[in-house]
């Protein structure tokens, strides 16, 4: 291995690592606030990438029907609850807003010539389409189970993952897709050629991580989410509803997931089922952070990306094995060091 190969691998590792770090942070965020291990996070990645690809091929992404279907079920449940108790004008307005939003997004998707609008608009539309699916999923599948033990939540999460992979196959088909890079230029750094997409991935990831940090350290809404993670009952007594917290974290996770998908779609070909392995690597990062520490999780995830990239060079057949074997020493080390057992209060 010479210096040039090392920098190329390092560049790959850093790109992947940045994505894994984003995913690790959202897995951690969802877990600490809601006790749910968000296994379907990877599906948001593929949904984001494949929706983008469909748009660039000038096709209307079929994901719109998933959004419409989920919004309809959600609103139907809302109306049912309203009738059972009493009709609240504000809630009715919310239902109308939700339906209106879905209709507007679908109208936009069907009337714009999607392959010709600027890429930034494609990205915005993709995010507008996918992000609302996060909170609706929380409301439909996890909110009724809010007090269930973590194991039940995990099982539902796995079921949801399997379902979403199936839905992905149904909506996007079995073909893989790749999108155009954000910009075509490359940069020279000494002897090494840097792909511009690599820079995009790293910069956007750093930006998102910093934005998350500021949101959680500085704003009262962010602090409220942290407070829910620290002490659920204490948070409820301040009027911070766990439902609000759950929906907010799921929206964030859906946003980060689909944004990651959009970011890496120009670099790797993604299939309907590629998301799982990607989010699993983020999960390894989260485990390295002990499912509590955000900075360690982010560093761990970048390390996973690096190790993955370099193991491609030395033992490409074993790269997945090497990455996932990495988790074992950390689990042993973690379980020897940690004194706090289980998450039940």
């Amino acid at each position, binding site marked *: 291995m010479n210096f040039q190969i090392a920098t190329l691998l390092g560049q790959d590792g850093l790109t992947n690592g940045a994505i894994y770090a984003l995913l690790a942070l959202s897995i951690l965020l969802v877990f600490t606030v809601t006790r749910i291990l968000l296994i379907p996070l990877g599906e948001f990645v593929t949904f984001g990438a494949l929706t983008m690809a469909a748009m660039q091929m000038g096709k209307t992404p079929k994901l719109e029907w998933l959004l419409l279907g989920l919004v309809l079920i959600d609103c139907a449940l809302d109306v049912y609850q309203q009738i059972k108790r009493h009709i609240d004008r504000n809630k009715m307005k919310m239902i109308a807003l939700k339906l209106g939003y879905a209709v507007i997004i679908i109208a936009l998707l069907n009337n714009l010539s999607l392959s010709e609008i600027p890429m930034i608009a494609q990205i915005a539309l993709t995010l507008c389409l996918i992000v609302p699916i996060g909170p609706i999923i929380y409301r439909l599948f996890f909110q009724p189970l809010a007090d269930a033990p973590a194991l039940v939540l995990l099982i539902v999460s796995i079921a949801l993952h399997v379902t979403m992979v199936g839905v992905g196959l149904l909506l996007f088909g079995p073909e893989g897709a790749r999108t155009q890079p954000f910009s075509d230029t490359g940069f020279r750094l000494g002897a090494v050629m840097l792909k511009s997409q690599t820079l995009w991935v790293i910069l956007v990831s750093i930006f998102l991580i910093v934005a998350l940090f500021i949101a959680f350290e500085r704003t009262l809404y962010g*602090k409220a989410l942290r407070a829910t993670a620290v002490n659920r009952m*204490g948070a409820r*007594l301040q*009027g911070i509803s766990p439902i609000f917290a759950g929906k907010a974290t799921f929206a964030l996770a859906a946003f980060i997931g689909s944004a990651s998908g959009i970011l890496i779609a120009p670099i790797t070909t993604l299939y309907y089922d590629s998301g799982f392995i990607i989010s699993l690597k983020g999960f390894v990062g989260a485990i390295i952070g002990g499912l509590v520490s955000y900075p360690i999780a982010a560093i761990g995830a970048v390390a996973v990306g690096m190790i993955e990239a370099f193991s491609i060079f030395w033992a490409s057949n074993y790269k997945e094995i090497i990455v996932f074997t990495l988790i074992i020493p950390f689990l042993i080390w973690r379980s020897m060091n940690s004194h706090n057992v289980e998450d039940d209060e």
Partner: protein
Amino acid sequence: MTQATEKNLLDVSDLHVAYGKVEALTGIDLTLKEGKLVTVIGPNGAGKTTLLSAIMGILPSKGTIHFNGQDFICPNVETLVGHGLGLVPEKRELFSTMTVQDNLLLGAFQRYRRGDKSYNQTLNEIYELFPRLWERRQQQAGTLSGGERQMLAIGRAMMSKPKLLMLDEPSLGLAPLITREIFRIFTDLRSQGVSILLVEQNARAALKVADYAYVLEGGQVAMQGPASELANDPKVIEAYLGLASKHQELLSS
């Protein structure tokens, strides 16, 4: 919110709570007038904490809870907080890995959400009331002493500017001097027009500061009346105060 208004702020009628098949509360009636301090005393296991939890909506209950002009049937916690009910639970439930200041700010979350920007003023008032919290505002809540934690829990509940503040065993595990300070704060709060529902083991001190008192026994109201009368009632003296426990009187002085 003056003491002159004699409106019922809280009106609980025929409240039942059961843990499985075991009934913990069997038909409690309780009223609290605006601006008053009402105390609920009783032996261990009488259902005092259960009563507060049920009013707050933490435990499912049967019966009606009329609060601030509205009826709530088995409401949820967040709704009641939004309507101006605050609870300082027995376990404090602080955000132990967050700073004292963040804990207090989160107490004003509902106000912040409604767009009420005056919570910084309340924050200053609370720092005036508890100078100790000001000194420790950047410290993690988990590092505070028992008394400071109790102050923080009360301060956090005050941040939402509740119409009614419910306190569960605020003197539990505190040294007598701190207890005295905490009880002095209740008198202060009441004179500012905050209505208080106080659950206490420390019966003598509680009766001293309260306007009205309920004695809970086995999930039912065994006795009720103006606090000063109950404090002299021979039955109460015998069961809860005891002649030998004169020292408790000092705690509330």
